[in-house]
């Protein structure tokens, strides 16, 4: 069973009106259990839209999305996935621990169980001593780690991430990439990851899905031959650079026509 299955999905905004936008046209993609797949492309290529269709935060205009063999709606209702955004989106009025507990509260967990799980998640993201802090007392990178801990608190089999490290500085970003791989390996979570960065996509992923805008579609899928174990040395390997080149060529195929014309990333 695939973790995510997308069949001939199209999504149009303002359908039938003069300002109709074809955010996605006839997209198909299959993500296997335990796989790390990145979606990359210029603004307006529909990568964030695709992620929101998987999350059932948007409904496709046509086509079908299934998650863990269920409809996307059912998967959302069952909280089969966790989600992290570019903004950490922590609640200022809750402590770090209470932030992590939020999805468990909504699932109706007992207080003691929630607390135990939150502490376990704090260990996982290596911030065990920050449970009683408030989010604004933490750095941007720490806040994102808490957001990831919250997304994984209910142990969902799937993690959906929309540029979760995009707002961080380069050094914190590389550290977070390593942490993300470690956490996913420890939990066996499948990940669909939206990014603007080619090295980031290649470093993290088993497969990189290259998308292009107007209408949003998949133009190329690059298999990254780096194996499961990745470390800082991975960034120096020939296969790493080959994959980067392959993704760059995929993006360049549409370069002339689209760069500089990008509109909002929907």
């Amino acid at each position, binding site marked *: 069973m695939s973790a995510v299955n997308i069949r001939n999905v199209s999504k149009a905004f303002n359908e039938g009106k003069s300002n109709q936008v074809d955010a996605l046209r006839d997209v198909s993609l299959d993500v296997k259990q335990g796989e790390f797949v990145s979606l990359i492309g210029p603004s307006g290529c529909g990568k964030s839209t695709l992620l929101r269709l998987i999350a059932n*935060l948007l409904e496709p205009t046509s086509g079908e999305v299934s998650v863990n063999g269920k409809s996307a709606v059912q998967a959302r*209702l069952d909280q089969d996935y966790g989600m992290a*955004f570019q*903004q950490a*989106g922590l*609640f200022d*009025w809750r402590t770090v621990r209470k932030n992590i507990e939020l*999805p468990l*509260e*909504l699932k109706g967990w007992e207080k003691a169980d929630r607390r135990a799980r939150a502490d376990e998640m704090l260990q996982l993201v290596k911030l065990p001593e920050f449970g009683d802090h408030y989010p604004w007392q933490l750095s941007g990178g720490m806040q994102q780690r808490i957001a990831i801990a919250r997304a994984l608190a209910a142990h969902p089999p799937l993690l959906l991430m929309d540029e979760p490290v995009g707002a961080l500085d380069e050094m914190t970003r590389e550290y977070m990439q390593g942490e993300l791989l470690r956490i996913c390996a420890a939990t066996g979570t499948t990940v669909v990851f939206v990014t603007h960065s080619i090295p980031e996509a290649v470093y993290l992923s088993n497969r990189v899905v290259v998308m292009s805008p107007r209408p949003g579609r998949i133009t190329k899928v690059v298999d990254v031959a780096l194996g499961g174990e990745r470390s800082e040395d991975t960034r120096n390997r020939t296969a790493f650079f080959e994959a980067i080149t392959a993704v760059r060529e995929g993006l360049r195929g549409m370069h002339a026509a689209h760069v500089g014309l990008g509109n909002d990333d929907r």
Partner: protein
Amino acid sequence: MSKVGSSLGATFGKVVPAAVFGALFLGFWEWAVRFFELKPYFLTAPSAISEQFVNNFSLIRAAATVSGTNALIGLVAGTTLGVAMSFVLSRFKFLNQIITPLAVALNAVPIFVLVAVLNNMYSITSEVPRRIMVALVVYFIVLVNVARGLTQVSSTHVELMRSYAASDVAILRKVRIPNAVPFLFVSLKIAAPAAVITAFVSEYFGGSQNGLGSRISSNIANSKNAAGWAYVVGACLLGLLFYSFSVVMESLNRKGRAK
């Protein structure tokens, strides 16, 4: 200890210049009245005002109790109604679109003159029109701010809650209400002084001559300027009391969030 000492020092450093300036201002006032031999009906000396304040203290306190009670009842009623209505508005978008611009506009006009109309609806000695007037003024201030707090929530938070399949009630309880709490306290900081001012001004439009507003106008009308000024001092103190209360409430709320 040193931290406590330095924060006390900082408070002291803020208070001293203001206190010195105030004392100098009163001194200059007293000197000007004596030096230019200003008539009491033109400008009364601070010494005469303070003498009147002490002599009439029990009367001033009684009048302050009347005005203060009106302001307090109106403040509580207006806040309660404003919060309740803001929930209704945030639930029904179309109502929000109709009522919010109206409420914003009403906040900018002196609606307290409506008390003249309200006075006709009740007996001449009734305090109800004044309380209704205070409640109305407070209501619109609280409504506009709290409705904003309930609706202006981060889109990331809303998407996150939808990804948890959270119900509208859960989103209200876990996102919208906590988001609106600081807005409520900010609105109280505006509404509390406005409540006191409205209570005073309401007394200028007839009714019992028992509050600070009516005592000020009747003393001035009888050329008892120093006594009038003494009631003005009482009015200032009552206004400060209400404002300080709202500031303390807000800082307690902020401390509760930032332990």
